[in-house]
């Protein structure tokens, strides 16, 4: 199948920064050789300062990221949306890329920060171009949450969650595949696919048939 299959790929990362701020405060206190307590009041103060600066910098950070991403994307791929929202300790970041052709998916590398090596947000994917279908197979981006952090936090609210959506406008009904691990949530919304998870819960294979 040689017809371009336009696609939209979105990734949403949701972070509860509470546990991270606590650990960072403990670390910085240790570095300072300070006897200061890392109690709830200290954490609240740090959070207040963190949140105020993060909110103040929202537009600046978005412009910075947009510039970096745009510079690194290949032809035929555009940054369609970029967003950061904060609700208390939970910060949700998302971006959506529009692809002229799904076949570009495995080669996309995005750099969010100038000067850094290009990153691979879509993992190790391979596309097999069959006569009547496209087969996408491979590994989603590996994200392993430190079990100690997850355990210490003791609740899902303190875990990192990440959502991956893939939508193919040429194809028909949506299908959802949710894979959950310790503190890690994947959701694949793929159109008219044959999706299945195997033993490690992170292997995906999606079959995109040509529209009838």
């Amino acid at each position, binding site marked *: 199948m040689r017809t371009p299959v336009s696609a939209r790929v979105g990734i949403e990362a949701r972070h509860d920064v509470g546990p991270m701020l606590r650990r960072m405060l403990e670390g910085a206190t240790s570095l*300072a050789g300070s006897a200061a307590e890392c109690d709830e009041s200290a954490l609240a103060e740090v959070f207040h300062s963190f949140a105020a*600066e993060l909110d103040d910098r929202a537009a600046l950070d978005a412009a910075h990221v947009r510039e970096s991403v745009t510079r690194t994307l290949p032809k035929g791929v555009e940054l369609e949306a970029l967003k950061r929202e904060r609700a208390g300790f939970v910060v949700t970041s998302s971006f959506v890329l529009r692809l002229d052709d799904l076949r570009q998916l495995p080669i996309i590398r995005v750099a969010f920060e100038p000067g850094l090596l290009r990153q691979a947000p879509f993992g190790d994917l391979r596309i097999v171009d069959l006569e009547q279908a496209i087969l996408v197979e491979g590994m989603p981006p590996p994200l392993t949450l430190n079990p100690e*952090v997850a355990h210490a936090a003791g609740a899902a609210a303190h875990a990192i969650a990440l959502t991956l959506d893939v939508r193919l406008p040429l194809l028909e009904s949506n299908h959802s595949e949710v894979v959950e691990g310790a503190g890690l949530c994947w959701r694949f919304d793929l159109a008219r696919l044959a999706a299945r998870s195997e033993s490690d819960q992170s292997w995906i294979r999606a079959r995109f048939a040509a529209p009838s």
Partner: protein
Amino acid sequence: MEILAHGKVARGGPGLGRARPEVVHEAKGVGPASNDGFDPAALGPAHSASGKSKAAVVTGPYASLAKRGDFSGTVLTASGEIFVSVRVAKTKPGTERPMVYLAGLAATRDRSEPLADKLRDDGGKTIIAILLEGQGETLLRDLEKHGGQSISNDISDTEQVKVVLEVLDALGVHAPVDILGLSYGGAIAAATKREAPDRIRETLLVAPHVRSQAKELMGVAAWQLANSPWNPFGHSMYRTAAKATLAKAFGGLELFKDHPGAFSEALFRLSMGIDKNELADVTQGMENLHILVAGKDRASPLVHNQAAIDAADGGSLTVAPEAVEDEHDLVGESPELVVRWVTERLNPERLEKLPPADT
């Protein structure tokens, strides 16, 4: 102290290679407080010059520095005005190889001079304590003259190395020196040896910065956040979190009371400037490297210090006594211990003259 491990055999290790041609260095008009009217005395009294009366007879590769005697003040360099405290050895000042001392992240004159004094008085050393860009009185001067230009961006280790070398040049010190660094200063000391191996003989690190605080100390969650390939704002979130936590942990300093926010901004810029550094990468193949660390120091874990020594080509790793096993700031906690360790590594023949360490 327990010497946990020796690295490969050090070439030109402690106590070796001190014989130098006796030459007289004349002061050429470059030196301390050669500035645009800034009065170093305004920052406080300098210590008395120990070698003044002997200036005419001081000889040796470090005579130029020794003849100036002790002082505390700014040195004009290409990087700007850098605050320096020099303490000159009382015995053979022209031939005693000086030691550069770089203190930790929140270094100030008050925090770095007591060790310099002790290393001179008890250890018989000549010390050049440098407050780097973004630190203490050097930062204060920059704030007063340039509005804090030095902290408008992250300050990299290579920029700080440049400062160290420029200070040595300004002081007329061209023969090799030793270098001692605590925590953040340890990272810069190691980088200085890497960048200018001909200028540095022995490298001594006390609880050095070993790797990214996000990676090591602040939790894997922070590291993932900073480097997550799926979060476009991960890096900025991490930096914002680092700034907030550093500011809270270190608090404020009276020195910067007229410059609100400057101290925490400096801590942030200094930390981020070396955040991606790994000590073991810097010490690869390094000769004459010595590290002192507390066994349970969370900010400078033993395992990464061991890796730094393993990567080096000669040196030693010393674990501090149990009494200070949790301490990161070994200089502040037990300067006697640090002086003893420095003496053990560099001048073991002087050990018997040292006062006993509390620990």
